[in-house]
């Protein structure tokens, strides 16, 4: 355990700490973020109404849409000089959600990713290969700071250049791997082509997240690498990776709830659901200074496990592996994609909205995205090169906007299935269950 005092804190004490932190959070948000002041006023709640963690249900939810409307810095609660890092996640309309971190925020986040790594047994003696993307995406830098905080050697390989990843993994004696689960499978495939036997490497744990995966994928990864594969969860609005992590029990993800308070609600009514019931995951960032977050609706579907204490000794509650989304967001190679973003690009190219269908599949170990676009008269040309230019333009703009490479296929009109009411925009052929 990285921080036994916090991670194994008696539950009663933990609730008390959460209550104190919640009071402080609401006070800060109300005083410094006009958005929250207006929201709490409209809801008829004053910061003084919050006396303990049980009062959290009195507070209104924060939606992703509201977060985005505060672009760029409307959610920030501190003067800009106190912000030391800015991350941004993809939004549904081109405007990302922007998260600013103070030095304390970075420190707390690193603490949580360090705890996540320690969940798999990592210590200062380990070498941690971080094959998550580095950049605005929180995956790479989030795990990096955690590895350093742990005192381990961080190896910032980022994603891509798989052959080199394998060479370094072998030559540097990497013991801990962090990546998306699908990229881990990709690494294994390339290693096999190179004739490298990964089972001979000193790897002991892998921290895989940023996309949905299954028990079957876990078994495959553990057959291909000599490591324990652990699920790690996070989202940039809340912090990044390290909001919750599995321990070596491999049964549910411990939420680091002295920082991130979890609730499960009915997505329709907003009512809190008891442990063991499936619903939408909601987080309150108890300690965040840069962007305080109150009851943020993640749109992720899971449950809080209704079980006794975890044998690992951590007292925090555990959430089940993610079970889906309450909205239409797709996760493609770890990147969040909303169909409305694709629609946006198409509308901007032609000024009209053509019929389209997003087909997601998994070929080998990598997600693929194909966008079928019906060729209307306004898009059509009798010249091949103009149609090819159109196709390439859509490809480039999708890539620029979503950071995902999609195959664009021009199709004849009326070939995309119309359903009554809501048009079918996505066909997900990936088998994840």
């Amino acid at each position: 355990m990285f921080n036994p005092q916090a991670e194994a804190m008696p539950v009663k004490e933990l609730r008390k700490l959460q209550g104190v932190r919640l009071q402080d959070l609401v006070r800060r948000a109300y005083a410094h973020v006009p958005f929250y002041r207006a929201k709490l006023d409209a809801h008829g709640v004053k910061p003084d109404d919050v006396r303990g963690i049980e009062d959290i249900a009195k507070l209104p939810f924060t939606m992703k849409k509201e977060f985005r409307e505060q672009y760029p810095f409307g959610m920030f609660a501190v003067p800009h000089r106190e912000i030391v890092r800015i991350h941004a996640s993809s939004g549904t309309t081109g405007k990302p959600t922007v998260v600013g971190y103070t030095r304390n925020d970075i420190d707390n986040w690193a603490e949580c990713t360090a705890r996540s790594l320690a969940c798999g047994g990592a210590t200062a003696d380990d070498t941690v290969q971080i094959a998550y993307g580095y950049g605005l995406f929180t995956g790479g830098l989030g795990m990096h700071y955690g590895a350093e905080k742990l005192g381990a050697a961080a190896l910032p390989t980022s994603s891509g250049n798989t052959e080199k990843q394998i060479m370094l993994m072998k030559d540097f004696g990497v013991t801990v791997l962090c990546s998306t689960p699908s990229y881990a499978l990709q690494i294994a495939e390339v290693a096999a082509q190179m004739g490298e036997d990964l089972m001979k490497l000193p790897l002991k744990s892998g921290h895989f997240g940023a996309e949905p995966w299954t028990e079957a994928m876990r078994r495959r990864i553990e057959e291909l690498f000599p490591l324990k594969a652990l699920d790690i969860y996070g989202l940039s609005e809340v912090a990044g990776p390290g909001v919750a992590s599995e321990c070596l029990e491999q049964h549910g993800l411990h939420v680091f709830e002295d920082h991130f308070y979890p609730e499960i609600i009915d997505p329709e009514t907003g009512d809190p659901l008891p442990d063991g019931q499936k619903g939408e995951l909601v987080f309150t960032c108890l300690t965040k200074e840069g962007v305080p977050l109150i009851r943020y609706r993640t749109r992720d579907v899971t449950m809080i496990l209704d079980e006794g204490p975890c044998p690992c000794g951590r007292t925090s509650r555990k959430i089940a592996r993610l079970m889906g989304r309450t909205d239409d967001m797709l996760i493609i190679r770890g990147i969040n994609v909303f169909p409305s973003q694709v629609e946006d690009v198409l509308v901007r190219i032609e000024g009209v909205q053509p019929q389209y269908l997003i087909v997601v599949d998994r070929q080998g170990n990598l997600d693929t995205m194909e966008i079928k676009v019906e060729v209307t008269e306004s898009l059509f040309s009798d010249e091949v090169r103009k149609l090819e230019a159109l196709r390439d333009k859509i490809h480039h703009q999708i890539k620029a906007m979503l950071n995902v490479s999609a195959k664009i296929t021009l199709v004849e009109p009326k070939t995309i299935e119309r359903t009554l009411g809501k048009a079918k925009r996505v066909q997900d052929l990936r088998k994840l269950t």
Partner: protein
Amino acid sequence: MKVRQISIFLENRSGRLASVLKEVGRAGVNIRALSLADTSDFGILRLIVDDVDKGVQVLKDAGHTVSLTEVLAVEVPDHPGGLAGILEKLSEANLNVEYMYAFVCRATEKAVVVFRFEDVNAAIAALKKAGISILPAETVYSL
């Protein structure tokens, strides 16, 4: 002078071309000339028919994406180097050919080449200046 060509978008799937030609045939529209441009993903069918308006209507009703394109038909001397000579003159006139296709006319035993130019009006002027005769549209429709 300008010949109206029907262009149709086709997916690269089996049976698509047959389906289009069936629609046209059922309406009693006769095809005079045809060319198919294809890529790995899609194709563009270009048709010259005897009844353009009817052809367009039939295809649109069947749900196809159709456009009308103005092309020029030129009679090419039926001897070696005939077409080369014409292309040379087009090149001298700085005319850009987007695409072209040829067929042999049964009645005259002469080759007819259909040209799609970037700027059809400039092409007409240049062809005339070069002394190349352009077939009247009506002649082409009833070839």
